């Protein structure tokens, strides 16, 4: 798929396959084209180039069929703030011609745990509750595929955990998810990941595959005055990243030998060096940095 906005190529030949029943994470820095890609999939934007199938329907020609079977949760809350929770759900149910509408809506409200607040206006809900309402509304027509655009932005940790519990339960019932997120812990909860930057797909696969594809070597160092050390290391050729993690510093590079040479002068007291497996975040930051330096 390719999508251009004037000069800018927001999605640049992104080629992605999501298997049925999978939870697929879609990551990338701000403005990398995640939202644009999801919008193309559900027919909100017309791709300039490329083709694809969603649930067996052609993305370009059969967007109406796709809309009926897909639930799309927008990045920004996009339900009607001057309608109550119940009215919003009822409206959505009607738009999808849901059978047993009243009962479905009632069940949905009960599942949300909002039975006693169902007459409250959606605009009066807190950010976290808005997200939950939006998810409930996306599920009301029992879609087969859910496209969730940063569904947990601004949601507290407990609610985020509940949310992911629910996602996993639904995936077990053969629902497919394509979820964008900026949280590493959420990325790690996905079965497979794709990372895009400036509209280009840079890596895709399972968490381990993505990490190993980046080919990063990481050392952890403990000791005093780490901030000062980090400063010095960042200036040293051969070090690509020096990032503070609590009481330690993660120093990494895609060139293991060069990194070894670079840190050699610092391998003495009071520093305690240890090689560790690279994390997803190290890998992503590396991808981002690499992208910046080549730009």
């Amino acid at each position: 798929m390719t999508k251009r906005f004037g000069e800018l190529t927001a999605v640049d030949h992104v080629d992605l396959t999501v298997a049925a029943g999978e939870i697929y994470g879609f990551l990338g820095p701000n403005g990398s084209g995640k939202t644009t890609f999801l919008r193309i999939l559900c027919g909100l934007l017309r791709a300039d180039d490329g083709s694809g199938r969603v649930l067996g329907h052609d993305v370009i020609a059969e967007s109406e069929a796709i809309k009926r079977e897909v639930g799309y949760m927008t990045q920004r809350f996009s339900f009607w703030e001057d309608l109550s929770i119940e009215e919003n759900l009822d409206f959505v149910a009607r738009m999808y011609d849901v059978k047993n509408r009243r009962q479905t809506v009632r069940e949905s409200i009960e599942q949300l745990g909002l039975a006693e607040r169902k007459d409250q206006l959606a605009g009066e809900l807190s950010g976290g509750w808005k997200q939950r309402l939006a998810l409930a509304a996306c599920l009301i027509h029992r879609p087969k595929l859910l496209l969730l655009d940063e569904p947990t932005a601004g949601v507290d940790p407990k609610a985020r955990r509940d949310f992911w519990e629910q996602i996993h339960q639904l995936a077990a019932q053969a629902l497919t998810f394509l979820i964008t997120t900026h949280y590493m812990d959420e990325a790690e909860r996905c079965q497979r990941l794709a990372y895009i930057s400036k509209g280009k797909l840079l890596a895709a696969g399972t968490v381990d595959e993505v990490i190993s594809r980046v080919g990063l070597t990481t050392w952890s160092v403990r000791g005093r005055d780490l901030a000062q050390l980090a400063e010095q290391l960042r200036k040293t050729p051969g070090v690509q990243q020096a990032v503070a993690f609590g009481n330690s510093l993660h120093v990494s590079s895609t060139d293991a030998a060069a990194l070894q040479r670079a840190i050699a002068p610092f391998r003495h007291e009071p520093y305690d060096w240890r090689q560790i497996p690279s994390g997803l975040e190290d890998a992503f930051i590396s991808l981002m940095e690499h992208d910046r330096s080549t730009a």
Partner: protein
Amino acid sequence: MKQPHRFSFQRLRGIIAKEFTQMRRDRLTFAMMLGIPLLQLTLFGYAINSDPRHLPAAVLLADQGPQGRTLLYAMKNSTFFNFVRQVKTEREGRELLERGQVLFVVNIPENFSRDLWRGDRPEVLVEADATDPVATSTALGSLGSLFDTALQNDLKGSLATLAGTSGPIDLRVHALYNPEVVTQYNIVPGLMGVILTMTMVMITGLAITRERERGTMENLLSMPTRPSEVLIGKIVPYILVGYIQVAVILIAASFLFHVPIEGSIILLGVVALVFIAANLAMGITFSTIAKNQLQAVQMTFFFFLPSILLSGFMFPFRGMPRWAQMLGEVLPLTHFLRIVRGILLKGNGIADVSLQLWQLALFALVALTIGIKRYRQTLD
């Protein structure tokens, strides 16, 4: 494969219900919908009710006899007229009228008294500036009986026989600058059309742009809705609002301003439905073109101005230049004004108004079709 994607009444009902609820919650808009007709009626009603007096007048008194003066005294005593000038020639009078220094020139000819005594029904010419008929019509309307009563005293006795017949004088009123003389009765029915045009076009003009600005459009578009469902669903609720406005105006017209209602109210209701739909369709079409609510409002005014200027509300339609008449024929307000004045004032029936009604319906259909064609189902 899947069943074809058809027009769904379930979805249409859903959109109508949503619009109704949102309208109910949007206090400001709702208040505006009722406030505008009330405010406009009060303002215009004040102008209509105000009974202008002491209007400046000039007199050309060529008569040497006493009866010419009798007429002048009668006019002065009525308090409608205020004689500011005595002119010597007709041209002088005309110039005063043109400059707006007087609203009337009363022309009492030479030998008026003599002719009166002879029973020759001498002519009294009153030239009036009728650009503002509201101001002049009451005064002019009173003239006939005013003169008759005044002269009755003088004509008592020997000339009493003249008084009863066709009036002792031949009163001629020339309304200048506005030969059709739009009276107050024309204004209230016209006001109905003007108010509906403004509020109906505006309210649906905001309908789609509001969804766009609030970001809810992205959601609406991600659902399997059809353009026709969305647009019709957004039009229907406001038809009711339009009817409420019509009712308010009709009640006020009849009870406050005593506008006669000669024709059938039911017919008026049918016509109003088509007219309201035409304006709502126009608005919704603007809404699909405008990028934001401000643009939608600007487009509304762009449509509203020619509507009041070229429809015959402001200026007599037949008095306009040819090109203006042609433009005016396209506007729904033009046809609605003709119909509504016909029904209310002349008691027109369906046969009299059907041509205009078809033209209105055609406008509504074309506007809605353009709207549906223009409605974008994508965000770009």
